[in-house]
């Protein structure tokens, strides 16, 4: 995505910061990139749900499929 970037302060609990650190390390991303990815994904899911679609998680090995309820 292009355009001028803006800076904001993010207030997180220790647990949230730990989760952010963990994701950044496992995905080899900066914390900013993790937040950016999360926002993209959240927007995508929100738009698709608003269009009446459903979100599923599927385990191909165990042949299990579960709908993720987003309220």
């Amino acid at each position, binding site marked *: *995505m*292009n*355009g001028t970037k803006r800076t904001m302060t993010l207030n997180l609990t220790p647990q949230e910061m730990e989760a952010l650190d963990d994701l950044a390390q*496992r*995905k*080899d*991303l*900066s914390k900013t*990139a993790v937040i*950016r*990815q999360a*926002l*993209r*994904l959240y*927007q*995508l899911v929100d*738009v698709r749900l608003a269009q009446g679609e459903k979100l599923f998680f599927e385990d191909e090995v165990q042949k299990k499929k579960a709908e993720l309820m987003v309220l």
Partner: protein
Amino acid sequence: MSTQSVELIRLDPSEIVAATLHAGLRPSDVLVVEHAWAEHRARLIAGLSTRGVPRSDWPQSLHWNWEAKAPQLLLLQASCAGIFCDERWQGLMMTKTAVHMATLAPDVGKPLVYVDFLETAPWNWRISSLGQEPQFKSVGTLLFKEAVEQSIREDFHGRVGLHALPQAESLYERVFRMTRVGPDAKKQNLVYFEFTRQQAHRFLSGGEP
């Protein structure tokens, strides 16, 4: 929108010409491109039909419609780049960044830039049955390079993935030297290709991947 200067190769007369690569195209920009391309597509379809060329030999992106793809750009995960030269758009590429993950070691499960659509303008296709030669070369290579550079800007270290149309498989496998992961049953059995970070860096440095 951001722009950078690039060079294309014109085939007739043979010369290198200045062009611009634009990243961050908006849906309205893409509509302009589609309207310009649709006319040429229609002429190609008419020519191929008249000559009785089997559908299997038609360019496989001939049915693409960027106007239909444009609304996807309203989402943060999608972006579009294009190359402009000679007062015309010479190629377009749409990439996605939210849901596609690397499948190759050592970065399995890490995000990559997924090239959803990459197409050169219809007048840049070689269609032997119509005697059409491309007006410009290297449009696709420059757009693919932009995908790799986007991946680096995104903190994805150059990782890129895509599903190739059968007519484009050799380009990605033999020219760009991407890893052929294999046919994907979830994507009409199109072959999935991927660039690891190492391959991407060698590609950008001009070395052998």
